[in-house]
């Protein structure tokens, strides 16, 4: 089915917030994502686990349009992200269309990627002012609220170089939230942190999950956390979903052999 034959819009009662329809991504001869079909419902918290090279991060990066799609279509809230409607068919989206759709998605990176030349507050204010057109005061109010929520109100005038990794990551979360996305992508957000600060970041994510209307997609190695907080866990292997289901099922009674192998290897290491 070529992209032209996909629906222009997803309608109906149960429209998923995110849909990967037959998505393929290749790097040269290497197929990183292989005809992926994945639906994520509104307000669902989905964890993606799996061995490295299984395509987990690529899923997030493609949703954030950091990578280009090779085959298939990605929908966000019913509207295509990677493609757009033209003459009744779907064609590859141009930059303007992607920018419009991208506003629904926010991302927190493994290495934080805070803007070093701005304070924590300025980091949070920057995009609302420049992209959403908020006034400085509006952006400041929103940012202060978010910084308070992640517990860093007192660090608002500090530059990233003066903050610990855990603090930087919390600012990064506040920064992403300031854009009021519908979908939050968390790409191994604790992997670059010292063990003692991982907890503070996980707490913030817990808070996000319980208090906000957010659809969340999280790639993580923190199995305990994934088990505790997710609505659904997907195990990726070789660019495909090997197994998915509620955390109790995946962690408690995995059906597939590769799932069992992966989990036992991880448990041994952890």
């Amino acid at each position, binding site marked *: 089915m070529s992209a032209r034959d996909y629906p222009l819009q997803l309608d109906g009662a149960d429209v998923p917030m995110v849909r990967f329809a037959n998505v393929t991504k290749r790097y040269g001869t290497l197929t990183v994502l292989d005809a992926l079909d994945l639906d994520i419902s509104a307000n669902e918290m989905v964890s993606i686990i799996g061995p490295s090279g299984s395509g987990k991060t690529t899923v997030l990066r493609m949703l*954030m*349009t*950091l990578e280009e799609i090779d085959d298939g279509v990605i929908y966000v809230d019913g509207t295509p992200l990677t493609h757009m409607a033209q003459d009744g068919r779907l064609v590859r989206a141009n930059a303007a269309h992607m*920018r419009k759709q*991208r*506003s629904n*998605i*926010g*991302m927190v*990176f493994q*290495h*934080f*990627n*805070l*803007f*070093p*030349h*701005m*304070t924590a507050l300025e980091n949070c204010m*920057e*995009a609302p002012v*420049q*992209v959403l057109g908020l006034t400085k005061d509006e952006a400041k109010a929103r940012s202060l609220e978010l910084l308070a929520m992640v517990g860093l109100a007192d660090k608002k005038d500090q*530059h*990233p*170089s*003066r903050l610990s990794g855990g603090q930087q990551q919390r600012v*990064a979360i506040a*920064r*992403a939230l300031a*854009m009021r996305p519908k979908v939050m992508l968390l790409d191994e957000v604790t992997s670059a942190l010292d063990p003692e600060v991982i907890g503070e970041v996980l707490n913030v994510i817990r808070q996000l999950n319980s208090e906000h209307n957010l659809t969340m997609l999280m790639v993580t190695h923190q199995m305990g956390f994934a088990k505790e907080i997710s609505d659904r866990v997907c195990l990726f292997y070789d660019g495909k979903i090997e197994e998915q289901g509620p955390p109790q099922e995946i962690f408690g009674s995995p059906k597939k052999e590769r799932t069992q192998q992966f989990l036992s290897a991880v448990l041994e290491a952890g």
Partner: protein
Amino acid sequence: MSYGDFLAVHGTRFLSGAIITAEQTVLAAVLAVAIALVMGLMRLSGNVLIRGVSTVYIEIFRGTSLLVQLYWIFFVLPLFGIPLEKFTAGFAAVGMNLGAYGAEVVRGAIQSVPRGQYEAALALNMSPATRMRRIILPQALLIMLPPWGNLMIELLKGTALVSLISVADLMFEAKQINATTFLSIQAFGTALVIYYVMARFLITPFMRWLEVFMARKMGRA
């Protein structure tokens, strides 16, 4: 005559020459920075034509010598209907020449900004223009300052060539004094020392100060 007497007699000429040299340097510097920013950014464009224009400019001005460019601008451009007064031709040539080297410095600095910054800006849905203006360029500016320090000294040295189209700069005055007094060591030696002082005790400290100032402004110091 002693060196003291020599300076007493010719000091004002050296001074007026040094002032012209300073003017040439500052004007050429402003031009060079402007050209470097424009050409450096153009060099990174996705558009083949834009990239091509800047590449051609950079290669021509880096591949030929400043003296040749100076003569061409002063003697040949008038034939194309662009007559330039010698003072203008002087700093224009130096500025355009060093702008080409500066463009490569700008380009290198922009490309040194970590990829994660681009990705974070994209994730926040910034347009490419906003991203370059607010996120990438400020960080690149800090990275490019040390190489620019070297370029500024090359710029100062380059202005000495404008004496060859009779602009009354420091070098020109030194030659004049040498022609009338035949005291070459004093004449050229003094000029050398003045250039050295300008480079080591004016330009270098200024650039260092600029580096500290920018770093502090960007919360890095």
